[in-house]
Structure formats: structure tokens, C-alpha cells
């Protein structure tokens, strides 16, 4: 099993959810994040003081998948999130040794989906 972590542009969340559904990935967790990457920040100014904002708003997806779903999941995220512009985001993949469904106590592969 793998744990996929993806950072995407916030307004792309809707698209990514749709491509994931098409890839039959229905479970995921979403959090708000601020990200610093290749994408240039922007300048704000408040009461006469300018300052660089380089922590940009991102959305963080966390998706646990069985190994056979991994490629589909990655492709779906890329399909939904990619525009070709800097700031599109990044995907990290971790090994996931164990997964447990709280309600039933089921473990492993069958607990994921």
C-alpha cells in the first residue's frame, strides 16, 4: 500500500476530484496548506510597507491506495491538476505498511477502499 501526498492549486481541487472519481479513487483527505515552491510569490503592501508573500495557498491531498491503484491515482491527479504552468504542484509517494478501518477493525488492503 502507498500513501500519496499531493500539493495542488486550490482551484484545481474540483477537477482533480473528478479525474480521481473517474479512476475509481473515491477516498481521500484534504487539507489547506501554504506552499513555497518554484512559483514566484507576490507583493502585498499594508499601510505603506511592502512585503513579499512567498507562502502561497495550496491544497494538500492525502490518498491511501493499494499498489495496483497507484499509477491510476497518480495519472488522475496529474490529469486534473496540470496546466503546464509553474505552481501546478507536486506528488510525494510514501510506503504505507498498515491501514486500519476504525469501524470494523479491518486491516490492510481491504481497509483502504
Amino acid at each position, binding site marked *: 500500500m502507498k500513501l500519496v501526498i499531493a500539493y495542488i492549486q*486550490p482551484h484545481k481541487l*474540483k477537477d482533480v476530484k473528478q479525474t480521481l472519481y473517474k479512476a475509481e479513487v473515491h477516498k481521500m483527505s484534504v487539507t*489547506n496548506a501554504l506552499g513555497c515552491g518554484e512559483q514566484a510569490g*507576490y507583493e*502585498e*503592501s*499594508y499601510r505603506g510597507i511592502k512585503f513579499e508573500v512567498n507562502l502561497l495557498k495550496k491544497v494538500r491531498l492525502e490518498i491511501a491506495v493499494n499498489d495496483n491503484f497507484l499509477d491510476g491515482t497518480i495519472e488522475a491527479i496529474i490529469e486534473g491538476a496540470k496546466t503546464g504552468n509553474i505552481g501546478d504542484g507536486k506528488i510525494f509517494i510514501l510506503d504505507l505498511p498498515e491501514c486500519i478501518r476504525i469501524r470494523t477493525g479491518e486491516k490492510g488492503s481491504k481497509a483502504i477502499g
Partner: protein
Amino acid sequence: MVLRKNNKTWLKFVLVFTALMLCSNIAFAASESIDIETLKQGLDTVWVLIAAFLVFFMQAGFGMVEAGFIRAKNTCNILTKNFLDFCMASLAFFLVGYALMFGDGNAFCGTSGWALAGLSDKTISGIPVFAFWLFQAAFCGAAATIVAGGMAERMKFVGYLIYSFLISALIYPIIGHWIWGGGWLSDMGFFDFAGSTVVHTTGGIAALIGTIILRPREGKYAPDGKPNAIPAHNIPLASLGVFILWFGWFGFNPGSTLGVNNGGFDIGRVAINTNLAAALGGIFAMLTVWKKYGKPDLSMAMNGALAGLVAITAPCAAVEPWAAIVIGAIAGIVVVLGVEFLDKMQIDDPVGAVPVHGMCGIWGTIAVGIFGKKALGLANDGFIYGGNPMQIGIQIVGSVATIAFVLVSMGIVFKLIDITIGLRVSRDEELRGLDIGEHGMEAYGGFQIFSTS
């Protein structure tokens, strides 16, 4: 007790006069009239000014409603627009607008009194020009700010500044002149007590043409035309705004008596009608949305109250309370259907400016012709009192003329802005939010906010 100056004057007068009396036996009882006259004028002025303050305060109401109903990322932008359009309106209506609206002139517009120069100290209704100006300037600001909501979340700030100067300096005052400044519509017997047409139809139709030219927000309509919900970011703020507006409307409508005549009977009538229409607008909008969509949506109920207020604005002095109830209830229904209709037409009006101010402004104007009473100051009895359609006809003429004039003039203004400096921000700026792009600041520093829609 300390005697004030004018009393002393009067005292002297009385002494002289009593002496005179003793000689001539002529009781000149009018001796005191000037005093009462001045006192009456003082009361009128105080009343109109307090009403003006309340109408000014509506600006805060508009700001909070508009800000509350849109997304957090565009909040500074709408608030800046709302704030500066009142500033611009104050300036424009001082320099140009008041003269166009209330200056002596022709049936189309006034042509004197630029920067209030050369006017007599008092207006026809007897209060000082300066006080009257403030009341009218606050109305002008209201008309201007209605548009901000309809065009929210995508219109450029510079364009908005230009627009707000032009509507306050030219377009609103001209319509105002037709109806309140002695122009052709008032000559016809058109009745718009406090501005369903002058203020709200003007603002609402300007918002309509503006939002059509501007096109919908990114993501509002799916490629197949299905509308997406873009939920409000701060309902308490909007709710507060609605209460402020309702509160301010007690200046808007009752204050339009422009004085305290007849022992306050007129004002009392206007006030009760205003309140009943607002309440019924709220109730019926809630019931309608509940029935149609299964849940009592507060944002619609609030729009309903505003709809009732807009609708009663024209007829408030000329109808009975039961009619105010009917007018408000219908407005509540109209506004829900109106929101639905606009979405069907893919006209994206984030806060409901068009249904509330445009549609219900028209409805209220026509309602005068249906429910109005000659005994309460109308040219003709309304339709239900004897079936005379005359007043309805007059009202329709006024409403249509206003709509046409606004569509054309504001259409030109927006198109010109679009061609020259651009009306709409870039797609990227829209996605990130206008607060950052246009103002380089955020509304809620430190708060974690999803900007996924």
C-alpha cells in the same frame, strides 16, 4: 433660566406690542408667527438630517451584505468599491449632480446650482439646501453602490471608480430630475415617493447591464450551462448588513416626507408600511425558497426583506398597511423567482442586486398604480379602487423610460470603460482573488481559508 437671544428679541417685541395694544386696541396676534415658523423649520431640518444620517448608514449595510455574500478572497475589493463609491458620489453630487437634479432647468435636467452655488438658502420644502443636499447625496450613493454587488468578484477597481463618478454626476441625477426635480415624469403625475424607480431601478438595471457585459465569474456556470453554487463566506456579516439596511430604510422612506407636516401622520404611515413590507418580504421569500428547494435559506430570506423594502419605497406614502403587506409578500416571491431566472439566463449576479433592486423596484413602481390612493396624494386612485388603469399606465411609462435610459447610458459607460482601460481583471487575478491582485492585501490576515471555489 438663561434666555436665548431670539427669545429676548421676542420679549422686546412683546413689550412694545403690549404698549401698542394699550393705545390702539389692535391685537396683532401674529407677533409670534416667525418663531413658530422657524421652530417648524428647525424640526423639519432635524428630521431630514437624521433621516439622511440613516440613509448614509445604509452604505455600511450595502458593504456588509455584498462582502458577506461573496468569497473571502474578494472582500477587500468590494469593500473598497463600496467605500469609495460613496466618497466619489459625495464629490460628484456636490459638484455636478445636485445641479442636474434639483437646479432650475428644463424637463430633462437642471442647469444651475453647480457646486451648490447661486441657490437660494432654502429648498421648496422649506429646509436648508445644505441639509437637503446631504439627504439627496446619501440617496445618490445608494444608487451607485448597488452596482458593486452585481458586478462583484471580477470587475476592475479603476473602472469602478470611473463608473461611480459618472453615475453620481450624470445618470442618477438626470433620472432624479425627471421624477423629483420637476422634470417631465413628475409633470405626468408619476409617483415614486422615495425612489423605487429613481434609486433602485436605476441601480438594479445598471447592475444588470454591467454584469451582462462583464460575463459570469470563472466557474459559475458549467460548460453545459448548469449553475454552480458559490457560497457566501460570511453570513453573519450579511445578516448584520440586512439589519442595517432595514434600519437605514427608516430614514430612506419616512425621511422622504422632507418635513414633519400634519402632526407626523404621514411619517407614521410611511414607517409602518415600510416595516410591514420588509417583514412580509422576508417571510414569503423564505416560504418560497423552502417550498422550491427544501430548506429555509437565510440568504434568500434576507434578500426577500430587502425586496419588500425596495418594493414599498415608491408606494409607501400612498397605500394602506394591508396593501404594504401584499406588496411586500409579492416582492418576496419575485426575488426568489428572479434569482432563479437570472441563473437560467446565465447572468451572474453574486448578491442578487438585479432581482432585489431592479425587479422589485419595477414591481413597487407599478404597485403604486394598483394599490395607491388619491386621498393620500396620488394623481389617480389605484386600479383596485374603482378599476381605473390610468395610474398604472403612468407608472409603467416612468419605469420603462428609466430602464431604457439606464440601459443605454450605462451600457455606453461600461463599454467605453471596457474598451479603454478594461472592465474585467485577468483570469489569474480572479482565481487568486481581487484582494491580492487589486489591493495587495488580504481581508482576513492569518485565517486559514479554503480558496478552492
